[in-house]
């Protein structure tokens, strides 16, 4: 197990290196640089622009810039934002907890809504319940998060006045977590239904029924258990989607987080911030998937790691 973990962790290094290089070139390839971004706010002469580019090292060849960035990164220095000179590591640390909070809350909502909905549709297969459940799931997948977010604000904050839009704590978390989690809930519902439908036809379920167990025990203790592995895999994979969705939802709800941070950085071509955030997000994604793989071993005794 330990050898497996070390091997997997070692694999993350080239992955993160690759991502850093790709992101570096993607940012460099977008038209306009940080100095152009400053020009949207203040007028500079051609000489001033050249001087600024020199100061920021933007006039060096791309490979030199990349080398410098990687060198700093190797020493644990994420650099400073081009705008306001904020240390990038500090910005990420300040914003990371809010994003983790939002994605975890969205995952919880996705599980609480999606799994029972999928199970219900499977148990009542080909009935009105099934149709209704899968219709809700279809709507959930189809509705764009930003639109749902704005509608939730209009209904629950402006209209009914039940929940705040901004702020910290649990109450302002509910609407954005719901807006972000609904699509995931829909995906989970469909996946749970598909796997449960299959599981309910398995011999071990028939055996359980034959033993006279009640419906609840059959469904949750026996049929559902066999769907946990694909659901877990999906959750791990969906973590990246949730991080991506958080970019949109954080902006809609004006929430603190890596999403709002990276959006502004992309608009400003603030390369050190974009690179730092993407690197951290990628590292989180890789680690979550590693965690999911490790959990398989605990959930399914047939899986062993060498």
């Amino acid at each position, binding site marked *: 197990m330990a050898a497996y973990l070390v091997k997997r962790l070692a694999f993350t290094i080239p992955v993160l290196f690759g991502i850093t290089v790709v992101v570096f070139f993607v940012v460099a390839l977008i038209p306009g640089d940080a100095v152009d971004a400053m020009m949207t706010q203040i007028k*500079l002469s051609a000489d001033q622009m050249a001087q600024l580019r020199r100061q920021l090292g933007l006039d060096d060849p791309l490979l030199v810039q990349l080398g410098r960035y990687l060198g700093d990164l190797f020493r644990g220095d994420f650099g400073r934002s081009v705008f306001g000179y904020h240390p990038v590591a500090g910005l990420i640390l300040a914003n990371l907890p809010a994003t983790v909070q939002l994605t975890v809350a969205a995952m919880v909502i996705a599980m609480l809504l999606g799994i029972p909905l999928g199970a219900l549709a499977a148990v009542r297969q080909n009935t009105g319940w099934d149709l209704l459940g899968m219709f809700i799931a279809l709507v959930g997948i189809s509705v764009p998060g930003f639109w749902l977010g704005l509608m939730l604000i209009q209904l629950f904050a402006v209209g009914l006045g039940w929940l705040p839009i901004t702020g910290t704590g649990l109450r302002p978390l509910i609407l954005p977590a719901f807006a972000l989690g609904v699509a995931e809930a829909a995906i989970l519902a469909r996946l749970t239904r598909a796997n449960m439908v299959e599981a309910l036809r398995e011999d071990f379920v028939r055996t359980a029924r034959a033993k006279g167990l009640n419906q609840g025990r059959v469904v949750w203790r026996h049929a559902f258990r066999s769907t946990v592995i694909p659901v877990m895999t999906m959750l791990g994979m969906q973590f990246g989607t949730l991080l991506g969705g958080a970019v949109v939802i954080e902006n809609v709800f004006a929430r*603190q987080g890596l999403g709002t941070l990276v959006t502004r950085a992309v*608009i400003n071509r603030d390369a050190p911030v974009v690179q730092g955030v993407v690197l951290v997000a990628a590292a989180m994604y890789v680690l979550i998937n590693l965690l999911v793989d490790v959990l398989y071993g605990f959930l399914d005794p047939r899986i062993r790691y060498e």
Partner: protein
Amino acid sequence: MKLVRTLIVTLALGLCLFALSQPTSGGTMVFAGNQEPSSIDPLLMSGNVNEREVAAQMFETLVYMDQDQVVHPGLAVSWSSSDDKTEWTFDVRQGVSFHNGDPFSAQSVVAQLEFVRNDESLIGGAWGVLKPLLVSAEAVDEDTVVVTLKEPRPDLLTDLADPGLGITNIAHIERVGQDASFQPIGTGPFKFKEWISGSHITLERNPDWTWGSTVFDHSGPAYLDELVFRFIPEAQTRLATLETGETHFLDLLPFADIQRLYQDSRFTVTEFLLPGMPQMNYLNTRISPTNDLAVRQAINYATDKQAIIDTVYFGLVEPAYGPLSRAFPEYDPSLENMYPYDPDMAIQLLEEAGWVDSNGDGVREKDGEALSVVIVENKSWNDWVYVLQALLQDIGFDAEVLTTQGPSNTAAIASGQYAVPSMGDVFANVTQMTRDWHSDGYGTFPSSHFWDDPTLDELLEDAQTEIDIDVRTEKYVNIQNYIMENALMVPIFELFFYAAHANNLDGFVVDATGFYKYFAAAHFN
């Protein structure tokens, strides 16, 4: 006895009314901004409007300028200038201290100006405007500063009243370096409390501030306990937070919602004509077909401003006719008749110039070249471009819209590759017309008419150093006529700035540009 009782009752009533009319202290006001600032120290700001808004509450400027363009004392209590407007003397306020307790004196102003003049890393930003102008700053005694400029600057006070030109504590900046960007120390009514990245900035009342400018009508301390600037990028969410009471003040209102807010009794909507260059399109004279005067004039005749205003802006803005907003006394109203909406005239001009649709595809050609233009849009700022596109297509243009945003817009415009870039500029000082029109700006931003004739440069240089106000007005009238006779632009509309605030909020002051608010005397009723 009856008289005494009446007197007592009257007195009591009077006292009650007096008490009611007195602003009450306390409370937290939340301002909804569209973007998080990068820096809130005037010397390290990039110049972003949200940065200025926050800095204006913590830093004081040497002078202030109100909406009627009247100059009020700030950290300078009086001032004078030499006849040629190159030497300015300021008497600074006594008894002022910085938020960290350091005393403020003439030496603080000198340190600031010398920092601006000498620090190589200071480029752009609010203070960057003055950098090329400064020759020296000297404290002749504890309260007097003499500033010498390279050339006459009749409007120096307008520059100094920019809310971004606050006086900082240079000793602090030298101590903490670039970190001052998020650890600001000023002399103003509010001091820095916390900055939660991605969420908000909180300022708290400076209890020592008792030297408030006459522009606030309140010498201090501020009434509000705290001032919170929340960053809300999405316009609809920003508006929703005002409606739920989570924020009290917001600007940059979406045009589609303004009428509704006017009718909502919970809020007050304010409108202000922004001085500067109206919303417009430059016509790039360096490339075809806009290098042809007839084409540029035709575009002007074909532009139905009223249609744009009615369909895109719900009738909430007004047509513009030249390069200068009518908010300036130098504005020339005679331009209003130069290019009335007249599509027939536009067609006639094009035909006479040889632009005809010979192959019947709906697009005019001349010598085998199609009448094609690209209109550059800066996303969410230039929504009129689609109407302009349709209007130009109606008279035989092949008009395409290129959508850009932020830096890609700057880069596209600076490239000089596009015929019809969209633009607009806000400034309180008429001499800043230079930066929008002088050839020094070619290849940067925003100057993108690329007019290849030194006459315009000469006119601008001559006007910006003119110290006689009447002569200066005449010179700026000439410039406006020169630009419009050569059709270097299509004026579209005068930008009105709409803001809304909770009805119980009162006492805030708006600066000369109409863009920035000072909350030194703001309070809840």
